């Protein structure tokens, strides 16, 4: 069981399997990188409409090639037809969203389902043709590497590499348009054309990936890696290339597993590997992951309880909350018999004085800029300058904490 998987991962499972794996990797890298810009532009599901809209093109291209006497299953021909069809779908989504009162999501759903429905009509027409060479067209629904030819794998690999090159060239204008379309326009970049370039990239990758992953799941390669990468970084370039790396790994591992284990279709495996990486990232990412969020929450909780505990000490009030007691004791501010330590009394006095300082500060600086900074936890010296703090202390009067307890 393990040996076939190792063979596939090391590209030793046969020439065809190696070609498919390389093609899937390049496609995955391109899809992940291009998908990032769609994600940043919040147009992720447009790629779903584009993907489903390829089906009529496949059918029409097959019929056209057969009518011209050629082999209806030529991959470049089918992909060209699907590209035209997807392009029409893209234009339709754009037109409906801009020219009517319907929202973009309704336009996406309408185009997606209608083009797909028409594609199914064409598939049933083709099935009734007398040509006898239509077998396998349904492989475009879910992807199929069985029977993939050298030329097919080469088409996918070259297409993936070309898309990647386009991303490298266009990444700066695309980044600019994603974050500040108006500034982009002011510097001479045509936002609309860059948007179209983004969509064209997604379209190209969708079309290239049809044979490998299938039109229903190709959208996953454009969505899951960017969403995963976004959990790891706040920097656009890092997200783009992390998404590319994740897409590439998913494509490679998915294709290898599919080659090694009989009966596992390539597309679903690639998607599930990608999803597994997403779940792992959702759990473990350093800042935006669930574990990191839980840890941050607990740290915040302890800060709040520590602050409230100190204020209660300063006011001489009894503390009954178990967590507050535990936090204070662990910090050495309170003894097990619930009496404040020397350090505890000092910290309590400091906290109380800080509260008074904040009150005075908000009276002096009544503008929102300062008022918005007070969250009950932030020490005032991190917000105001030392002389401002001294001025506030002068207004308050009374003993300075540096002078020691009284």
């Amino acid at each position: 069981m393990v040996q076939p998987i190792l063979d596939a991962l090391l590209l030793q499972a046969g020439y065809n399997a190696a070609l498919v794996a390389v093609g899937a990797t390049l496609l995955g890298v391109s899809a992940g990188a291009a998908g990032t810009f769609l994600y940043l532009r919040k147009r992720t599901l447009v790629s779903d409409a584009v993907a489903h809209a390829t089906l009529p093109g496949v059918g029409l291209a097959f019929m056209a090639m057969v009518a011209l006497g050629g082999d209806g299953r030529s991959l470049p021909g089918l992909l060209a037809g699907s590209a035209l069809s997807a392009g029409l779908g893209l234009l339709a989504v754009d037109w409906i969203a801009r020219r009517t009162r319907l929202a973009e999501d309704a336009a996406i759903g309408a185009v997606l389902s209608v083009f797909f429905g028409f594609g199914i009509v064409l598939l049933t027409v083709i099935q009734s043709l007398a040509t006898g060479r239509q077998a396998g067209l349904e492989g475009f629904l879910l992807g199929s590497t069985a029977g993939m030819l050298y030329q097919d794998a080469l088409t996918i690999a070259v297409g993936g590499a070309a898309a990647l090159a386009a991303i490298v060239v266009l990444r700066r204008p695309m980044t600019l348009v994603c974050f500040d379309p108006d500034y982009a326009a002011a510097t001479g970049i045509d936002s609309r054309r860059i948007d179209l370039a983004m969509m064209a990239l997604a379209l190209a990758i969708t079309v290239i990936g049809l044979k490998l992953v299938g039109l229903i799941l190709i959208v996953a390669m454009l969505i899951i890696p960017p969403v995963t990468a976004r959990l790891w970084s706040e920097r656009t370039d890092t997200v783009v290339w992390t998404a590319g790396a994740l897409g590439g790994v998913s494509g490679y591992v998915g294709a290898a597993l599919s080659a090694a284990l009989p009966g596992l279709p390539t597309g679903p495996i690639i998607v599930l590997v990608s999803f597994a990486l997403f779940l792992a990232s959702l759990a473990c990412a350093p800042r935006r992951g669930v574990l990191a969020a839980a840890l941050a929450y607990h740290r915040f909780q302890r800060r709040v309880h520590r602050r409230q505990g100190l204020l209660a000490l300063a006011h001489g009030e009894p503390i009954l909350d178990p967590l507050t007691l535990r936090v204070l004791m662990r910090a050495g501010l309170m003894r097990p018999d619930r009496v404040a330590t020397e350090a505890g009394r000092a910290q309590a006095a400091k906290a109380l004085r800080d509260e008074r300082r904040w009150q005075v500060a908000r009276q002096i600086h009544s503008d929102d800029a300062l008022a918005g900074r007070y969250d009950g936890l932030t020490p005032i010296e991190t917000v105001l300058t030392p002389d401002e703090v001294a001025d506030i202390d002068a207004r308050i009067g009374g003993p300075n904490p540096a002078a020691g307890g009284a």
Partner: protein
Amino acid sequence: MSEEFVQLSLTPLLIGVLAAIACALPGNFLILRRQALIGDAISHVVLPGIVVAFLVTGAVSTWPMMLGAAGAAVVAVVLIEAIKRLGRIEPGAAMGVTFTALFAGGVLLLEQSDTSSVQLDVEHALYGNLESLIWLAADGWPSLLDPVALAGLPPELPRMAAVAGLIAVLTVLFWRPLKLSTFDEGFAAAIGLPTATISFGLVIVAAVAAVAAFDAVGSIIVIAMFICPPAAARLMTNRLEVQVLWSVAFAALSAVLGYVLAGYGPLWLGADHAVSAAGMIATVSGAILALACLAAPQRSR
């Protein structure tokens, strides 16, 4: 001709119309809430739900399939919400991640399980099989009053009728809460309506419609019915009541025209074989929407 029509076309036609109406009703509110693609996500996860139900029960029978698909829809909705909240991911992307992963899981389970003994495959789930829902026990129009013949009706028809009726009743009953929470959620919450519960209920109803319709028109075509008739109706009027009526009319028209064109259109054109009824219904609904985009009175923003 008349006998043949009742036997071969009447029940598929009725099932198609009922499925279209059942999906169009919640679709009106989904598109107004900008949740049109929830129908898309639900339709994709019907397949894994059905596969899991099959693996658990070992049979392709009605209620386990329905429960499996409905359960998958609920899981999908909860998962989308969880991903959105936990990862702070935008709704569209969270939806895309969820339904593609669940669909991929369903396909994988399907390939790995022994379903060769039953009619359970991806194409069936996607395309539907409307043409096969015929009424062989019928002998013509008098059979409508014949209890023996009525007992031979395809089970999809009473089931689809029950679901369509239920959804219509729920729409009428919850009209005011739905309308308020759709157009002014803040105000609805302020006067005490449980807006989150209403939203979840709407999604559940959409899931029920999708699940019930999938056998007839296939899970992908369901999306067309959730969106195209309500969207076309939206362009016809500014009044919600009238919009819903228009959407029902468009849904029924799409189903009837689509079925007729799929079955007889190729014959008129000299071809020998019918084409996919579900695909043609979706195509006709798209044509209706295109006409509305070009010529409807309230089409501009």
